[in-house]
């Protein structure tokens, strides 16, 4: 019984059924393990690791300059920004807003700089359901290429205080 001591020598060979099951399970595990780096190298949608240390001040300044440079309008008090393709674009997460509204072109590639200037936040591109963690002190650079036109909302997926559920932003793909 599993609640009593086993026989003195219990290091005994497995029987056929057990060997077969372990072999199947181990093969499956190794296939998954090989697929992990393969998907990372071959897949079209992966979390990048390009990151820089940044202070909230530095990031806000860079974002403010970016917004002034490419501002094309305003929606509900939030500036709308249309940057050229290939450029560095900025998205600031703060309690409880995303700034600016980004107007991007389908099929063009951008370097999206993502950071928080206060608490930890999370970015969900909704309803597509793409999720990233947004941390203060870290500039997370996501190289993105929008593939479908439309309006996407950004919602915060990390608890960031009482107004967390009000933290909604927007990306427009034209």
């Amino acid at each position: 019984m599993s609640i009593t001591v086993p026989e003195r020598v219990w290091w005994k060979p497995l029987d056929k059924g057990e060997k077969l099951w372990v072999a199947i399970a181990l093969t499956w595990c190794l296939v998954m393990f090989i697929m992990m780096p393969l998907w990372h190298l071959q897949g079209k949608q992966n979390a990048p690791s390009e990151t820089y240390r940044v202070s909230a001040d530095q990031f806000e300044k860079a974002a403010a300059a970016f917004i002034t440079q490419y501002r094309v309008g305003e929606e509900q008090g939030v500036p709308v920004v249309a940057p050229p393709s290939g450029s560095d674009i900025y998205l600031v997460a703060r309690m409880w807003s995303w700034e600016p509204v980004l107007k991007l072109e389908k099929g063009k590639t951008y370097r999206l700089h993502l950071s928080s200037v206060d608490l930890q936040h999370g970015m969900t591109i909704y309803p597509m359901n793409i999720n990233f963690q947004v941390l203060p002190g870290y500039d997370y650079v996501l190289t993105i290429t929008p593939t479908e036109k439309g309006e996407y909302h950004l919602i915060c997926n990390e608890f960031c205080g009482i107004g967390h559920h009000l933290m909604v932003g927007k990306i427009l793909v034209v």
Partner: protein
Amino acid sequence: MSVPTAFRTCPTTGLKVHLPAENLIKANAVVAVVFFLIGVAMALLVAMTRWPAVHLLGDEFFYRALTAHGINMLIFWIIFFEIAVLYFASAILLNSRLAAPKLGWLAFALMLAGSGLVDVMIALGKADVMMTSYVPLKAHPLFYLGMILFAVGALVGTSLFFATLVIARRDRTYEGSLPLVVFGAATAAIIAVVTIAHGAIIYIPTMLWSMGIIEHIDASTYRILWWGLGHPSQQINVAAMIAIWYLLGALTVGAKPINEKLCRTAFVLYILFINLASAHHLLVDPGVSSTWKIWNTSYAMYLAVLASMIHGMTVPASIEVAQRRKGYTKGLFEWLKKAPWGNPSFAALTLSIVIFGFIGGITGVTFGTEQINIISHNTLRIPGHFHATVVGGTTLAFMGVTYYVLPLIFRRQVVAQALAKIQPYLFGVGIVMVSLGMTFAGSYGISRRHWDITFAGATLQPAVDPTVYLLLGIMGIGAILAVLGALLYILITVGTVLAGKKTG
């Protein structure tokens, strides 16, 4: 050596029961159930708020109840119960005295003071920070102090387990290798050491930061260290749960491990590799590299997953072998048909294996890959996953073993047997609905830890897919069933301890 009067002999199992150990087991188990009750009350409030048709609490109370629910369930209920399991597996199963029972009471007092302090701070609204308390979100210093006291107490309790193993070997209360269940408990205890070490490393500076003594805690470093506590604490549950699967297999149908080497290898793989899995939580984080993420989230080549696949075979196989030995050999499934389905412990064991394996395990392994994590991180898929592992799996297994702890340790006959028979099914069905409702709602991008999926009052208004309302309704109804099942468990347990007929 202890005096002989410190022991009694269990009339059912013939085990020598060390009375001071028994008292500690009772105290820890009773307090565990009290925290479970708090957790259940919070569960109902949280679920009834996330069900949009009810939307019970206001935002502030929702986040407070959610913080309390997570901490009371995932930490206090489970760890108090696990300390009881560790004392049982070391002292009772090895026929030994428990090392330093006085320290056991100190551990108990520290854990109780710590958990009480944390709950008071949450109730006072000084710690609306969720279970994870991600910096720079700040709680009152006493909240962190409570967590530290609790962790120190748990570490003392875990050390007593190891010390008891040493005493039992020295006093020759057993010969040869540890029984498999004790080996499983040792796996849980080893993982607990990893957990508590990370807890100390992160909570102490965070408390000092909250007091204003340290100026800054880096958000990403906090996440790495906190998850060195957060996920391993759940791996303790996995190991303890599987030890209990083997225990219940033995108690309910007289199952024997079919191959000790295989079962123990699976536990060793847990010890060596399961804790790398903490990196799952950081798959879409800045800072750490893809190499680190891939290596760690694969548990170093999925070796800990292999371990679960092994237990998933050996536990049911040992039950089948035991049943066939009893003569249930007709066809492929007579052994299963003739299983003791009316024994709540057997029902809980089976449901725990099925829910943990097929819902919890599969969601866990898939969400732990980079690409699927991008579409599941911080959505309701995550709580959907861990309600299948830690509630449908661990909690249900703990409920199952309770129906043996009551007659064997508390020496009381379980009251309301008819209700006890349906209790695991009610709880199991409820939690499956909760888990599936959340998992599928999460696949629509619905966030976890979110008060209002309609975003009423936000300046920008995303449209919500109507299917989500149906899925969250399933979650809500499931939550009511699970809460009823949980209350039934608490009533039966408390009723038995207070008013059950004395045995032996």
